[in-house]
């Protein structure tokens, strides 16, 4: 049934995003916000081996301008 291959969606998407942006000299950065540790552990393997920045935040309150500013400054150095 069917002809097309199936892929795991998120992993394929992330690798495509990373390679697309890296080719164009841009920096992809994924900020994963979750209070659940189990969900974070499930999510981490998806980003392994990809050329991208990843930051895990425990709370939505931590997602603010200061966090982004640090990420932005690290790239400029």
């Amino acid at each position: 049934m069917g002809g097309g291959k199936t892929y795991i969606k998120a992993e394929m998407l992330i690798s495509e995003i990373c390679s697309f942006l890296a080719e164009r000299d841009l920096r992809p950065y994924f900020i994963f916000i979750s209070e659940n540790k189990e969900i974070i552990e499930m999510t981490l393997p998806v980003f392994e081996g990809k050329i991208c920045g990843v930051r895990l935040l425990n709370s939505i309150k931590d997602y603010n301008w200061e966090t982004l500013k640090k990420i932005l400054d690290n790239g400029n150095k």
Partner: protein
Amino acid sequence: MRRFLSIIDRLLKPEETGKSLNPNIYPNNQWYREHTERNFDLVILGDADKIPRLQIPSGIKAFDWSLSGQNLQWDFNVIKHFFSVLKPEGLVVFPLTDSFVADIYKKVDERRYYIPMMPYFFTQSKVKMTFIRICKHIPILARFPFKNIFNTLVGGGQNLHKSGNVNI
């Protein structure tokens, strides 16, 4: 008196905080052609319902292209078309929440993965398919390779997307 005047002055001239972040701008082809300003530092994507908008201080050239209900696939489609507004080594931020986990183990069909998102591409592919459908119903035209005729008329249309990857 001076304090009173400063308060009035503030009321008349609101602070420029977040001026660079214009939430009303969401990119499309028309906007891209009309606005020639480039070299932006930062683009924020993601779901606007789950992640709050940030007040970015003036002086930093940034865009918040987050939209309510926007998933990672749509994020990629937006940045795929408008990445050139960013400067070299510009930062693209993808904030993700718990809902992203639902996508991790979801399997998708290869053919259904590439969907033309932008209206320009969609319109062009729609015109092409309509042309082909009309040609099929006319016996004289059906003999000719109408796909090639259309491509020569439109010019370069075939380069925008491979025929196998388009779902209408």
